[in-house]
């Protein structure tokens, strides 16, 4: 069958879904991209700049927008994929709102949810005004002003790594991979914006795994005077001057340390998206112990669901950065085409 007659549904219009849809359309397939928000773009829509080079996120957004401007792609917004089931003539995909569509293959790219930082109660997110998440800091960067809740300029900001990651207490043993380098990127941005504001990163391990990440870490020390303290913050409170006070062990000094902060930024980790979990439950897709979708093989089957005609792309399988998400989406397309050609 000619590719133009084949229809592929893509569930989720973030980075992975957009790249997958664009690649398939380019190859001549008919694609329907289903996005739960008002427009495709996913988490990237709120982001100001990207690691490791701090380029504007808009550059990647506009690349992806162009990617899905194709006559073979129809986009359905404000809609989620509820269920994928096998049908005599292929797959049937149920959408929220009660409609359904037939498809020859489905790429699941439901992505991740940001960890709800209020679950780490000891950090006081949602209780203290000046405790914010890394995503909220990006919004401040977008507005061009980093300020305390009362509008005043902060003189010291702390970035807390591993919030909701590597933490059994919130049922997330996995590392979210991107938060370390995001913290370093954001620390540099704060220092550039507010040169008199001190910045401290509180980390357990610095995981600078990608190209130019380690260089960014070095740059933050060499040119921006970002401070790094190795220790997991145990709790935050507010003192009589309405300043945040954190408790941590400076594990390299081997002594407990307290520090006042004006703003505490929680580097919220990645969790399997709730919408993806719902879809997985309804469609019999397996999930790993970290709740992300389980692929047939971690090494050579990491786009394969084990269900005929259903493939995975992006952070619905594991935390990953944008570069890896785009590669993973292209690989999902390759697997999809291989499947369609082999039928």
């Amino acid at each position, binding site marked *: 069958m000619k590719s133009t007659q084949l229809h592929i549904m893509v569930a989720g219009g973030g980075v992975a879904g957009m790249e997958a849809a664009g690649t398939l359309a380019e190859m001549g397939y008919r694609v329907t991209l289903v996005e739960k928000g008002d427009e495709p773009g996913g988490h990237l829509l709120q982001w100001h700049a990207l690691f490791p080079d701090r380029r504007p996120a808009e550059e990647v957004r506009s690349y992806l927008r162009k990617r899905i401007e194709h006559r073979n792609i129809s986009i359905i917004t404000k809609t989620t994929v509820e269920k994928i089931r096998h049908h005599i003539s292929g797959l049937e995909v149920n959408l929220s709102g009660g409609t359904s569509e037939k498809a020859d293959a489905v790429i699941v790219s439901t992505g991740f949810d940001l960890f709800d930082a209020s679950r780490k109660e000891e950090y006081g997110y949602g209780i203290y005004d000046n405790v914010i998440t890394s995503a909220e800091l990006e919004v401040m960067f977008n507005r061009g002003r980093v300020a305390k809740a009362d509008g005043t300029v902060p003189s010291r900001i702390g970035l807390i790594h591993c919030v909701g990651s*590597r933490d*059994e207490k919130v049922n997330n043993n996995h590392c979210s991979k991107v938060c370390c380098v995001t913290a370093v990127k954001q620390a540099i941005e704060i220092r550039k914006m507010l040169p008199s504001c001190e910045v401290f990163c509180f980390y357990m391990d610095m995981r600078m795994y990608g190209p130019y990440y380690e260089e960014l870490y070095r740059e933050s020390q060499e040119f921006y005077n970002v401070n790094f303290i190795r*220790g*997991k913050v*145990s709790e935050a409170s507010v003192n009589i001057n309405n300043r945040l006070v954190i408790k941590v*062990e400076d594990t390299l000094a081997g002594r*407990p340390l307290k520090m006042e902060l004006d703003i505490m930024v929680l580097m919220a980790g990645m969790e399997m998206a709730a919408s993806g979990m719902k879809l997985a439950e309804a469609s019999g897709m397996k999930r790993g112990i970290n709740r992300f979708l389980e692929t047939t093989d971690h090494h050579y089957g990491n786009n394969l669901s084990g269900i005929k005609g259903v493939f995975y792309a992006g952070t619905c399988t594991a935390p990953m950065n944008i570069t890896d998400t785009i590669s993973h989406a292209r690989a999902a397309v390759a697997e999809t085409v291989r499947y369609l050609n082999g039928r």
Partner: protein
Amino acid sequence: MSAGQANRFGFVINPSRLIDYDTSDRKVREYITLREPSFTLCFACGGCAATCTAGQHTSFNLRRMNTYIRRGEIEPLREEVTRCMLCGKCLLVCPRGVNTRNVVSLAAEAIRKLERNEL
């Protein structure tokens, strides 16, 4: 003459600070690991030491103690274990789910046994 004191020639011999992993005594580690397997999960984040009340005023540091036990460095433990008040705040913090309080109890128990040659 004890090590570290100046002798009549005017020079000093300091005791070795080396952790000699080949001769160190890891019986305490084995004793604890067998009875509290979560002991092995520590990744030295220091959350326990940050929240520890005893650690604010004494040298008690559970993160460091775990490392000493793992390396078979028993001497520094003898004093340390007596300082914990077993309040269990560290249990609430630990991101790896180590049964920290039991680790301290077992370390104290192991040292008592060591002193009575029962280990």
